[in-house]
């Protein structure tokens, strides 16, 4: 499997460290249901058959966290973007 790093180009997956679901967002620590929300954030995950947006760290390269879109059925990778662009955009909206 090769991941198209936006900084380093397509690189082999051994250079990357997998983390997991890139769609969950850290909830507010002060909300009334903070504990339940954090429980959900830390433990509850979907297991999709098909496209999955997930976080990979380019440990053997640029040290960028990437949001990679991968098809869980066949490892086809649709693309990869720097996580900070995705998460900054979240904050903006």
């Amino acid at each position, binding site marked *: 499997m090769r991941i198209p790093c936006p900084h380093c180009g397509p690189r082999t997956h051994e250079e990357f460290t997998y983390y997991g679901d890139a769609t969950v967002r850290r909830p507010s620590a002060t909300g009334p249901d903070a504990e339940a929300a954090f429980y959900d954030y*830390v433990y509850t995950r979907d297991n999709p058959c098909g496209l999955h947006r997930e976080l990979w760290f380019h440990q053997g390269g640029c040290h960028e966290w990437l949001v990679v879109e991968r098809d869980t059925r066949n490892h086809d990778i649709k693309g990869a973007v720097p996580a900070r662009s995705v998460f900054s955009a979240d904050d903006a909206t």
Partner: protein
Amino acid sequence: MSSRIAQGGAINRQQVCRFTFDGAGYSGYAGDSLASALLANDIRLVGRSFKYHRPRGILSAGSEEPNALVELRSGARREPNTRATDIELYDGLEATSQNRWPSLKFDVQAINGLFSPLFVAGFYYKTFMWPASFWEKVYEPLIRRAAGLGRAALEADPDHYEKSWAHCDVLVIGAGPAGLAAALTAARTGARVILADENFVLGGRCLAERRTIDGQPAADWAAQAIAELRSMPDVRLFPRTTVFGVFDDGVYGAVERVNDHLPVPPEFQPRQRVWRFIAKQAVLASGAIERPLVFGNNDLPGVMLAGAVRTYLNRYAVLPGRRAVVFTDNDDGWTTAADLVAAGGQVAAIVDSREPVIVSELARRFPDIQAIAGEVNGARGGRHVESVEVTSRTGTSHRIDCNLVAMSGGWSPTLHLTSHKGNRPRWDEERSIFVPDMLPTGMRVAGAANGDMTLGEALVTGFRQGLTAAASCGFSGSMPALPRVTEESARRVPLWRVRQALGKCFVDFQNDVTTDDVELAEHEGYRSIEHLKRYTTLGMATDQGKTSGVTGIALLAQRRSIPVAATGTTTFRPPYTPVAMGALAGHHRGMDFRPTRYAPSHRWASELGASFTESGPWLRAQWFPRAGETDWFEPTCREVKAVRSTVGLCDVSTLGKIDVQGPDALKFIERLYANNFATLAVGRTRYGIMLREDGFMFDDGTAARLAENRYLITTTTAHAVQVYQHMHLCHQTLWPELDVQFVSVTDQWAQFAVAGPRSRALLQRVLDPRCDLSNEAFPFMACGEVALRNGEPARLFRISFSGELAYEIAVPGHRGDALIRTLHDAGQDLGVVPYGLEALNVLRVEKGHVVGSELNGQTTAHDLGFGRMLSTQKDFIGSVLGRRANLIDPARPRLVGIKTVDRNAKLAGGMHFIPQHAQRSIEHDQGHVTSVCYSPILEQWIGLGLLTNGPDRHGEKVMVVDPLRGAETLVEICSPVFIDPEGARLRG
């Protein structure tokens, strides 16, 4: 060399290669395979079969060979189960037959054949069921001895293996006519091309056939094509290279047999090299594999695939038999008859199973050969075929004497690589073959691999696919003029098995699976092809059923009266042919399995005779023995005492170090650490703990505020990488708005602990005299930039892991060796002692500091006595879930100190706490001992542990038990801080 044809062949008669087989000496020529050289020397019997120990010869001329497996080389270089048909002959080659005892010609276990009812499908499950006690003692050794293949070498492999990468636009797999054609058109567009072929000569069946391309022999056309490819700078040719697997995103695994054709690889060269080819496009031109026909004793030596016979005749100039019978269900078999006659052989008869009208039409072209419309019922002979029994369609039977049977059941496309990513091939009913269907992204198929069996089709599809592959990469070119080629026909009427058979009819030669086994399995309900495979082991040998798979499927379909298409295929997985584990491992063996990291003081410590141990990726000094000290215990105790009474030196560079800078550095650190850092002044250091988001302890270390917006934080050696990664995750996904930068500087700084009552005195000798180390100027937890006596810059931290007055001094990594020597020399009269990991561990247990054994991923801050450090004023990683009721339950196992009641008793890590008078059972388990040591200060064994309600139980006596080793002793629960609980020493 009695079977060598006087002229022709792609062999070099000037270069004689001597070799041995089962100890006897023979010779062949450069360009021979081991199989062709054996045949040239009239050796027909080369092995014994897996279950029945039946005599076996050479069936094929390629990597599909199921029978002719030999042990190659000897001693540490012995390699079992190599295919004689694949092995390139070299001078000095040693080969030994396998699975026979006492000799190949006389094998006592051939008697297994008489007991063959015992060895039918599922025999493993049926025969050796009872009594159970017989399994290990009788059956397993028996099976292992009887049903073995070759023997692996018992010594370590003395050769090297490499791993490498190569990139290209178009990868062409297979260098037969289709592959060469594809490589030519792709390369002529300017695309970067890699052409790989498993054989030691490129050319494929161009070398094996007497066909012409534009009037010249196909082999000459191939030679010209290769010469043209070789002349192009962006083309790389890989002979002796098997592309064994297709992986994600255009990654192809291949093994190049760099030096397998030499007795010993030249110095500094690998035996084999595993390649990963990264290709934008691939053209699969892997050809086809001929199917054996299924008749009685079709496994006798001398029964050979018809196409292989042509390879031996035309490529190797060997006549595999003087008097042949050709048995075929297709037109291609007739070509073999023609080639045999052309080579001076005698064809006693050609037996064609098809309608007489087809047979007589073909027979008109061969007026001198007796053609029979009928079938071969069986072969006869002892260790070699001597005759065949033939029944014609009219019902007449003949016995025909012969010493070669060339059989052809048609050709199966070699489409394995098309299905490595999970795609299944499609059954083409009209041609009775499986053909590729869905393909891996970027792959195209040309020639026989796609079912286009004739030379003309191979060239056309090759040219076309090479061009389209290059076009997909952005290169353009044009189709060359199509060459004129010899006419051929692949017409066939499949004969999956003969109607009347004499003797066992083998389907899978290597695993000794017969038609009876297939029928029995079906009869017993194993009707899925996957079940049939596992029950009969059809296709499960080292050849993975290359010659047997399709026939097995067709026989099952026939038996169940369903179409082959409904039966499906088993799954093809990498590797295509066996790949040595050594090649896959490459250089990652022994100490080279992963890089070893050496601490900056390593050379100095080695000179002092230190004993080293692996600590994660690092090699660290364990202890520094002095003359007369022979074990670990003495030096460790001496080093501990020195730190507590004079001064010790220890390399702590392996701790992770991360330099954090920026206007938001404090905000960032505040969110990472569970405790407060807002009040930390510049020039001060603070101990900090990090949690995971689930509320459990992640790591601990110190953060030193070097400047207003600059912190140097340390991590444990074990978690250095994870913490750094975690910080990036937090910054890039949680708080991208924070203006902060950080980088790991673990390798950039050498850092040494200088610990003990005389540490200040020692440092004063090493540092610039203007540097004030008094308690007032540089108190406990101070940090700052200092200068050495020679003016070089250093950093000083007044932190202590031992509980003594202590410092850590850091210099740029390359100055570490000089500094440790300076420190050691300067402190001789102060009694300075280097100490290693063992003493470091004793010192920290005595002081109650936690390390990996306590930070084990299952403990919380509360468990380890850090509960009060958790800030309630801020949000930090783990703040919410760390407050969960269950995680702050006082009844959780929590950190305590323990000392033995009997001062002579010993402790072991991992012992479990059990109340004094309770039964030693899991119900009474109250936690476990995490760290133990002999304390030379307290002169007894002490330890740390995690005990239910621990901190509330100081003074209580509890049993610690080790049921595995039958040890137990009584301990007293106490504070984890054994030495200087008030901290007077470290502030002194």
